[in-house]
């Protein structure tokens, strides 16, 4: 590891730490709410969404933030992207561990985490599955965020900020809507072929045991695909006023 790599990685992690601390603060609010209001069931899946959203922001904002330091210190795009990847992997692992740990506390997550209950993940193997799935999910969302982040660099700050809500809408809200529909109208799933198809896509077929490996595969494909795009866009990134 060259000194430059280490220095650039440190800058990346500093930028990402800002997002991580912010996310942790948001997460703590949910923890307090669940402790005080007994809304542990809600917290069970809201912590999943906080994690995913943070991953997206890590890719979208924190990664391009560090470009300024890269430009000022003669860091090549290649080295910059390598350190960004390492930083995002570290953050994803930390978040996967944190969310899984928090979900294992009954008073916080009620009957367990959303992921574990939906995919029937129990015992030590189940915990490992949870960590792996979350890790890959965060990486995928970070890759999507980073790809969009580099692509939107030439846009103005306001547009970029507005895009955050776009990303949120695109990436998190459909899942949230699906969960709400399933909770509100449990019969709809058995009635709707479309919903069954969507659920089967993420490894939740109606009459068979859930298949978390399908979800893992989806996140892996997303990570690789958007990771490739992020590298493509990132390698072309140039100095502009927005960095």
């Amino acid at each position, binding site marked *: 590891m060259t*000194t*430059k790599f280490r220095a650039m990685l*440190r800058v990346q992690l500093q930028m990402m730490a800002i997002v991580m601390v912010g996310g942790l603060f948001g997460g703590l609010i949910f923890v307090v709410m669940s402790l005080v209001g007994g809304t542990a069931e809600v917290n069970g899946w809201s912590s999943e969404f906080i994690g995913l959203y943070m991953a997206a922001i890590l890719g979208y904002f924190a990664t391009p933030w560090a470009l*300024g330091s890269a430009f000022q210190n*003669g860091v090549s795009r290649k080295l910059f992207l390598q350190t960004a990847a390492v930083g995002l992997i570290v953050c994803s692992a930390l978040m996967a561990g944190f969310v899984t740990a928090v979900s294992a506390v009954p008073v916080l997550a009620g009957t367990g985490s959303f992921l574990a209950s939906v995919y029937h993940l129990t015992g030590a193997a189940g915990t490992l599955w949870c960590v792996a799935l979350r890790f890959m999910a965060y990486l995928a969302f970070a890759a999507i965020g980073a790809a969009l982040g580099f692509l939107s660099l030439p846009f103005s700050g306001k547009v970029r900020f507005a895009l955050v809500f776009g990303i949120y809408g695109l990436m998190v809200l459909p899942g949230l809507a699906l969960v709400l529909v399933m909770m509100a109208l449990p019969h709809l799933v058995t009635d709707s072929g479309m919903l069954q198809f969507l659920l089967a896509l993420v490894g939740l077929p109606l009459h068979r045991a859930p298949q978390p490996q399908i979800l893992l595969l989806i996140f892996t494909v997303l990570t690789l695909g958007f990771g490739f795009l992020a590298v493509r866009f990132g390698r072309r990134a140039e100095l502009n006023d927005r960095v």
Partner: protein
Amino acid sequence: MSKLEFKQVTRTFGNKKVLRGVNMTWEPGQLYGLLGRNGAGKSTLMNIVNNRLFPTAGKVLLDGKSVTENADAQNRIFLMSAAMLYPGDSRIEQLFTLTKQMYGAFDDPLAAHLAKAFGLDPHQRFRKLSTGYRTIAKLIIALCVPCEFVMLDEPVLGLDANNREIFYQELANTFANKPRTFIIASHLIEEIENLVTHVFVLDGGTITLDEDVAELTAKGRVVTGPTALVHEWLGGTCVLREVPLGGMLTAYTLDAPLEKPVPAGVTVGGMDLQQMYLELTRNGGGVDDD
């Protein structure tokens, strides 16, 4: 010792051609002036050298290898510019440390001396500084990096006359103690003309002048006198500009026939770099003026 070579460096933004094939060479241990009007592309050129922008065509070579995406080359090149690229909430001393980590070395004693000379408190956060002191913080970093090629884009932006003088003195001092190449892009030409020994003029996207300052000042003359006499003395000499005033004529030339005796009534004076630059770029300007 390595030199930096520019080979047909071209850069377009959309359909705006800012650089149209720049060719020049930066030798080691020199103090250069890079002159050009607003929008001439000086910053674009320096950004290409420092890998912040990519050339559309052409190459900048260090030891025969392109500096673009070249980690080894970029470790030996530094650019101080107006762009706000440092994390604003960092303290100045943290920026010193960051720079040291990035480049592997940093002249800490010099940084301490410069901070004192300029009256900059290294505990201050970068964002809290005034425009002038932000420039000073960046200048201190630029003078303390272990790089062979240090580009200073508008190095005195927002600096008052006293701090400008301190900067020029400290630059001369550090350059004398540890020769490396500095490239100064500034519009305050008269302030750097005793410092730089060679100038490049960027005009219309290409290098239109590439000369030693001593050569230029040895040849540049302002000739004043009765129109006929001035014309007679100059003969077929190439004249940059003639300013008639009644029967009198002032002619600016880079090629005065100094071997001929000057007729009575005609005065021949020297031309400083600023005046020469003005005459050379009078009709040029940025791409926006095209």
